[in-house]
């Protein structure tokens, strides 16, 4: 019913962000169908892959290093975090990324005449969580405001946002830079966190003749997190963004997925000669879909801005929004900002003030999970290397897996190695998250104990591990089922060694004739006999003794 109210926007000259749209009307025709690329439905709670660091593993270019000897960049980031609430911010429509266009809309999020917003209380809860996690001061009394501008994806002609009294402000975030970039601890200021609603999406058809409006996303709750201009390099900026992602995932308020747009970073960057106090002209960069694009776009922009200054053409750096083009690896002008946009903010009369009680805030404060920074410090204190710490604390589920493994009594370092090694590799290959593999932390602990205690060899341990990850089961069960207990009995191994030597007199002669490389052959034969169960240390010791006995 509501859908038939929709009609398409048509544009003759489509560019990625068209300055103008030509719009035609067809009575009664539904223009909101998706173009050929029908997307499958994906739940909001998409798989969170245990990501290995998304930060570029490349060395900064020589050119950039040279430039940074004389200039510094001043970088601030505005992050939009889409909240994973069951329903939108001001109506009861669910939001599912990738759903058919205009299938999750109602009079309220479509901005129909007479419809009114009613705030979803989960939005406030999420904002308070994030505000506290970012060490902000909370406004116990805040309000919503209307930010007014016209665009076809904005159904009401204004966005419900927060203007002069954000729900949280004046915070900071602690990060640890990746070791490959020299490591180090940083503290970046958080200017503010405020609640607002998302806009819809424009879909531009292949031939560029017209554009269509999809309002599924309209009214989805967002938190806008604005940093202080405290960052100086692309790596710092990328790590800041990664920490925000970790935080919202730790808190469970968002899936933080950049590809789906659940986490969007807009970077503000200017450069200035080292020692200069005044900021240079800042440029905003949009369309950054990964942490590495954040980092690379900044590197590109530093070089571009410095080049203009070096060429005596600083005036070419203008207040503008630039778009990162992933394919071309460069930024291009999207729109110039001629003067400040006047959004004519005023208090949203349809919504009452947002008042938080101390009890409410304390309740949330007490229910916060351990946050990434605390976790990293705790892991560090366990004696883990920073490399290990950063890996294990990166993903909340991996960290929980690690903690549970330790809790089952496993050795810290061994547990870390297993998780970061074979388990991480398996998850990456199979594209599974740590919650999706069948291995439990208790069994990993058991596995580590079994190897340490000599019940099984490391090699067998690895085999069992893959079995546990793929099919589940218990270490004890598998050892029993497959008869994998390690042979450590000296006389038994001696017997097998004797037998193997006796069965291969030719090779024994060659060995004793000086071809000592054949030790490997004998070891292999013995392992074959014992199906790999012979304790390698004992085996080699006895084998060497026997091989060299008559020499």
């Amino acid at each position: 019913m509501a859908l038939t109210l929709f009609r398409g926007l048509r544009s003759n000259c489509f560019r990625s962000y068209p300055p103008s749209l030509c719009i035609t009307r067809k009575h009664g025709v539904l223009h909101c169908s998706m173009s050929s690329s029908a997307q499958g439905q994906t739940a909001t709670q998409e798989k969170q892959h245990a990501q290995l660091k998304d930060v570029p593993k490349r060395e900064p270019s020589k050119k950039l290093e040279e430039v940074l000897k004389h200039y510094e960049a001043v970088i601030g980031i505005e992050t939009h975090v889409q909240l994973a609430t069951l329903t939108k911010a001001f109506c009861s429509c669910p939001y599912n990324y990738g759903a058919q266009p205009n299938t999750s809309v109602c009079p309220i999020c479509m901005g129909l005449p007479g419809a009114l917003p009613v705030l979803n209380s989960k939005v406030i809860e999420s904002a308070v969580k994030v505000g506290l996690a970012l060490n902000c001061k909370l406004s116990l009394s805040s309000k919503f405001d209307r930010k007014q501008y016209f665009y076809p994806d904005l159904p009401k002609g204004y966005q419900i946002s927060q203007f002069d009294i954000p729900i949280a402000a004046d915070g900071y975030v602690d990060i640890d830079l990746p070791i490959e970039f020299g490591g180090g601890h940083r503290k970046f200021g958080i200017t503010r966190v405020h609640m607002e609603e998302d806009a819809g999406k424009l879909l531009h058809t292949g031939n560029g003749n017209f554009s269509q409006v999809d309002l599924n996303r309209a009214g989805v709750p967002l938190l806008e997190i604005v940093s202080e201009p405290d960052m100086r390099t692309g790596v710092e900026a990328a790590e800041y963004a990664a920490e925000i992602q970790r935080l919202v995932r730790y808190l469970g308020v968002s899936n933080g997925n950049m590809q789906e747009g659940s986490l969007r970073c807009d970077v503000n960057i200017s450069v200035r000669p080292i020692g200069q106090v005044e900021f240079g002209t800042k440029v905003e960069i949009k369309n950054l879909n990964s942490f590495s694009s954040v980092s690379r776009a900044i590197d590109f922009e530093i070089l571009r801005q410095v080049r203009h200054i070096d060429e005596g053409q600083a005036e070419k750096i203008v207040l503008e929004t630039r778009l990162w083009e992933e394919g071309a690896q460069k930024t291009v002008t999207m729109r110039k900002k001629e003067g400040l946009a006047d959004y004519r903010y005023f208090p949203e009369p349809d919504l009452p003030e947002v008042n938080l009680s101390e009890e409410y805030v304390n309740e949330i404060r007490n229910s916060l999970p351990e946050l990434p920074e605390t976790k990293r410090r705790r892991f560090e204190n366990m004696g883990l290397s920073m490399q290990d710490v950063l890996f294990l604390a990166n993903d909340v589920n991996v960290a929980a897996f690690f903690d549970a493994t330790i809790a089952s009594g496993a050795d810290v370092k061994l547990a870390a190695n297993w998780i970061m090694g074979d388990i991480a590799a398996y998850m990456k290959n199979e594209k599974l998250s740590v919650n999706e593999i069948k291995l439990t932390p208790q069994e990993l602990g058991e596995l580590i104990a079994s190897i340490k205690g000599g019940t099984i060899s490391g090699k067998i341990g690895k085999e069992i591990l893959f079995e546990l990850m793929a099919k589940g089961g218990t270490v004890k069960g598998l050892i029993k089922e497959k008869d994998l207990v390690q042979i450590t009995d000296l006389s038994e191994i001696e017997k097998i060694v004797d037998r193997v030597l006796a069965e291969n007199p030719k090779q024994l002669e060659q060995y004793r004739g000086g071809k000592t490389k054949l030790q490997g052959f004998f070891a292999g034969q013995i392992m074959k006999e014992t199906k790999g169960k012979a304790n390698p240390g004992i085996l080699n010791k006895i084998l060497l003794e026997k091989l060299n006995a008559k020499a």
Partner: protein
Amino acid sequence: MLSSAQTPRFLRSTTATATTSLKCLHTSPIATSAAIPPPPPSQILTTRKSLLSRQTSAVDLAKSFLHRLRRSEPQLSSFLYVSPDETVLKQAEDLDKKIKNNEAVGPLAGVLVGVKDNICTHDMPSTAGSKLLENYRPPYDATAVRKLRESGAIVVGKTNLDEFGMGSTTEGSAYQVTANPWDLTRVPGGSSGGSAAAVSARQCMVALGSDTGGSVRQPASFCGVVGLKPTYGRVSRYGLVAYASSLDVIGCFGSSVADAGILLQAISGHDNFDATSSKQEIFDYASQFISIDDMESKPLQGLKVGVIRETLEDGVDSEVISSIRNAVSHLEDLGCTASEVSLPSFSLGLPAYYILASCESSSNLSRYDGVRYGNQVFGDELSSLYGDSRAQGFGSEVKMRILMGTYALSAGYYDAYYKRAQQVRTIIRKSFKDALDKYDILISPAAPSVAYKIGEKKNDPLAMYAGDIMTVNVNLAGLPALVLPCGFVEGGPAGLPVGFQMIGAAFNEEKLLKIGHIFEQTLQGCSFIPPLVADEAT
């Protein structure tokens, strides 16, 4: 005590008699040809009684209203849309069946309601009087309409209004000009002029209007009907096409105080779809409407009435002032003590109102961009699509208010206009609060004049805005107010009704209804049925 220096010309006060009644005489042939008319009955209660006792059927009742509606509509043009007869009669038939089967029927069973066209109805167009929303049909019913239907009411049609509620004459409708049933050459007031005219001419029993700055009360006064503006938050705004969100309320029209009160009862209450709707308890208003036979000789003994001095000064027609003073005398006869009260901030209300209402409307009307619904004008560029759709869709008054509001909210002007107006609003709110701590109700005219000629103020917006002086303060303060007819002024074929306004404390509608009902039932000699339908209306 009020001085009554002026001699009322059409309203004579009979001093203190045991009957505590006031003769309301005028020289029109209608009044003189009739015997002393009875006090207005509650059409809703009468209907209910006769339906449940099988004296009449809902179908017969609906037919008689439809007949009168169709006969008078060519002269009045109060409706933008009238439901087809069969649709109305079908609902009436269903009710009759229920009654026949002794099934329970709602409190508004068989009541024919007119709904202002800025209130959404899923089965009828809802244009808000704008070309931009021509033929627009919402996919949902406004909460107030839903509640009406659930109470058994039959929505008979959508009434005319000034575009988006912006105006005081209903001349601002993009579709038609509604005439005042008392004098077809005069305006019915606005913006709910269609609803007021329809109730006045008995085209429907009761009607919904909306009141942002007086849009229920001023047309009620002009058309001689009862108009009730509830406390802000008492009635859900969900489905009311927003003009100025912090001021808008849905209000009630009836031919008696009881009808307006019973209608309010049906639509009141918290709504999960309106965050500004109140959870305050709703009084059983019907219990206030005692029969005149059961009234004591001084039924309002002990009540304190404050007459707002600033509303009886220059700029207000002397005949209106006389009528109000006589109404106050009548209240005194009923046992009230009346005195003048000064609200020095009163005159600040008008500019503050026009700034705030314009600011909010400039924002609320942003959604009419021609993209999703409403009339769209094709454009080669996005900006021309927006510009042309809005330029051709909106009328001049709406454009003017959008421009004023946009200007007042612009960077650099916000503090001087919007913020200042909000400060004034706080002062006004406080001055009303203080006055209502001392007095049970406050009294003023509903408008500075009676209904004026069509076209008279059309090209003089400032004169028209000035006409809202009596009502806007109440919206700024968010208070409930009841307007009821209290007399006549010479003009038209049978005189022109004058309404007076009673303002109460927030969420205390029952006090207004109680006083209003007693006032109305004891006001003798007045019949507020316009000559147009006087011969046939019951």
